[in-house]
């Protein structure tokens, strides 16, 4: 998809009017890019079929900057929702896609976002079946906001519930943490530091499917620690089930450059956002098998067991530091702030 022959270079209020300009935008960009039997009907909504229980998840994406190393708001909007559906133990099949565009957005940027959505959706095996486009006045948005809702069939072997977790269950992380948040930080105005850190934004539905196929109900819980990071998610789970968590700092997968950037900016990687990371809480009997399988998968090469659940210290996540001391991991309060010195 390119801007040639579109007849407009920026998106204006008219493109959200519902009239001819809207039709022009939809036909030439949206319908053309995402064409599939459900969308091509151009009905007010899509009618789809499922044979099992369905999982539904929705998410809005307001990230700035909209383009960053390793992705853009479009690919993120697909991965984010696909992963949330996958964390329910389901295989995402359909997505809705809604844009809120600030007038003045360059069409070339919009097309780049749309193309990324298409690629990410194809790679994740999902179809865009319905959607919406609104345009707001300049200053009432921030270039582009995207909402996606995902629908997926729950895997027949899945029994994902925090209530299944017992003391001794192992906590496995698939990939290096803190990549996404630090990639965004390095691109943000005012925080000038140069790095090659790329966002880890990616789909996790296939690795989750493979795990469920192989281990069924011994996979007790799946969660992707996006905003708030690994620390906040572990704390939430511990609190939800009134159990404790023991983790080891030395076991947490963290890439050197990301660790250095966190050090420099005074941020704790435990609270930095991820977009391609999930934790699996698994029965202790399958720890080694899960690790072996994940490490063979492209989305789990750096998989590590970082700790386990315990009946000791309920509601608390206790981390053993690299020098053998202990500290609690509390939930993130507000945004992490860069420190003074």
């Amino acid at each position, binding site marked *: 998809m390119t801007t040639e022959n579109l007849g407009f270079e920026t998106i204006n209020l008219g493109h959200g009017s519902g009239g001819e300009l809207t039709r022009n935008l939809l036909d030439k960009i949206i319908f053309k890019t995402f064409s599939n039997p459900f969308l091509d009907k151009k009905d007010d909504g899509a009618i789809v079929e499922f044979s099992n229980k369905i999982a539904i998840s929705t998410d809005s994406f307001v990230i700035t900057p909209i383009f960053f190393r390793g992705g853009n708001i479009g690919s993120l909007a697909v991965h984010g929702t696909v992963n949330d559906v996958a964390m329910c133990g389901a295989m995402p099949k359909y997505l809705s896609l809604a844009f809120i565009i600030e007038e003045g957005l360059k069409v070339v940027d919009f097309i780049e976002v749309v193309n990324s959505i298409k690629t990410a959706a194809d790679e994740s095996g999902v179809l865009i079946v319905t959607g919406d486009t609104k345009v707001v006045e300049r200053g009432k948005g921030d270039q582009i906001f995207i909402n996606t809702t995902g629908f997926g069939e729950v895997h027949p072997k899945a029994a994902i519930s925090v209530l299944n977790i017992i003391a001794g269950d192992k906590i496995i992380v698939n990939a290096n943490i803190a990549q996404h948040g630090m990639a965004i930080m390095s691109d943000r105005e005012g925080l000038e530091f140069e790095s090659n850190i790329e966002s880890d934004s990616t789909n996790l539905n296939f690795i989750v499917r493979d795990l469920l196929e192989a281990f069924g109900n011994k996979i007790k819980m799946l969660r992707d620690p996006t905003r708030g990071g690994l620390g906040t998610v572990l704390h939430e789970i511990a609190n939800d089930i009134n159990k404790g968590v023991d983790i080891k700092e030395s076991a947490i997968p963290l890439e050197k450059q990301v660790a250095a950037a966190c050090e420099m*900016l005074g941020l704790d990687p435990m609270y930095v956002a991820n977009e391609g990371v999930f934790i699996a809480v698994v029965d202790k009997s399958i720890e080694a098998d899960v690790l072996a399988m994940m490490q063979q998968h492209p989305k789990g090469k750096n998989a590590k067991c970082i700790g386990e659940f315990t009946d000791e210290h309920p509601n608390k996540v206790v981390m053993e*530091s*690299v020098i053998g001391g202990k500290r609690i991991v509390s939930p993130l309060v*507000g945004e992490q*702030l860069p420190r003074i*010195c």
Partner: protein
Amino acid sequence: MKYLNEYRNLEATKKILDEIHKITTKPWHIMEICGGQTHSLVKNGILELLPEKVSMIHGPGCPVCVTPLNLIDKAIELLEQGVIVCSFGDMIRVPGSKKSLLEAKAIGGDLRILYSPLEAVTIAKENPTKEVVFFAVGFETTAPANALSVLHAEKLGLKNYSILASHVLVPPAMEAILADELCRIDAFLGAGHVCAIMGIQQYYPLVKKYKTPIVVTGFEPLDLVQGIYMAVKQLEEGRFELENQYSRIVKPFGNTAAIAVINKVFEVGTREWRGIGEIPNSGYVIKQAYRSYDAEAKFNISYIKVLENAKCIAGQILRGIKKPNQCDQFGKACKPSNPLGAPMVSSEGACAAYYHFSTL
């Protein structure tokens, strides 16, 4: 990460901890001055690995915590006057008397979070019709960069840049603590980064006058246990000397170029410390020659004497009289999401360190 991983080594740290256990025979109170050291001690779980007889007291070295309440109010007033206020991230959640900078931003203030004051000068250059103020807080560590921003603005001929300065100095604060009759400090861990700028010469008179060991110490786990070991060893042997554990960074005369920049823009004067009060000759004020870069002189900002929350014992925490978990409000009425005082929000505040990390 070189020079970091070596100082986070389990075996090396354990070896020194064992030594501390071996040589400790009497109870000792050691104050780490810097909030960065407090956080490292708590975050790495070092406090629990020390002998029971060695008690770490957390010092006032949290720049955000000691920045006076009325100065935060002044920064907020500037925001409300339409000035672009630039600040280090640490500062923005600290409660002023009515609201924090973050809350002032939410209702329309143009607040920018920066890592370097030089970026604020760039913002001033790019916004010639707006006034730009950098909220220049901190100890000796941030003073050179803040001074440099003024010199940089002068060089560029910018008339729309100024700093709201609240710089405080470590040695006068240590002296105020030592002179306090409630003082129970046997030795200090000196703040490594402050000494990297200023050198260590200023500390000899304190060691001599108060017969108190000072060990200039770094921030990594191995640094801290080494510093504690050196302090305990002096105490057990009845010595009081100035020692430098952090010699890989700290040179005896400091960073002379940075000191020259500080001395060009600032001079020593009386400063108010939040929670402690006024301490003579305890901070930097902007020299007469650079008054046009002093936001307090440049803008008409009101000074209203405001009172701290009566339930907050930040002053006692900052002087090491009480520990965060000895405060009745700790973790109850006072949390990072609803702080009564600055030590609960700052990344170097002792209360925040205990709240976020401590298993005690």
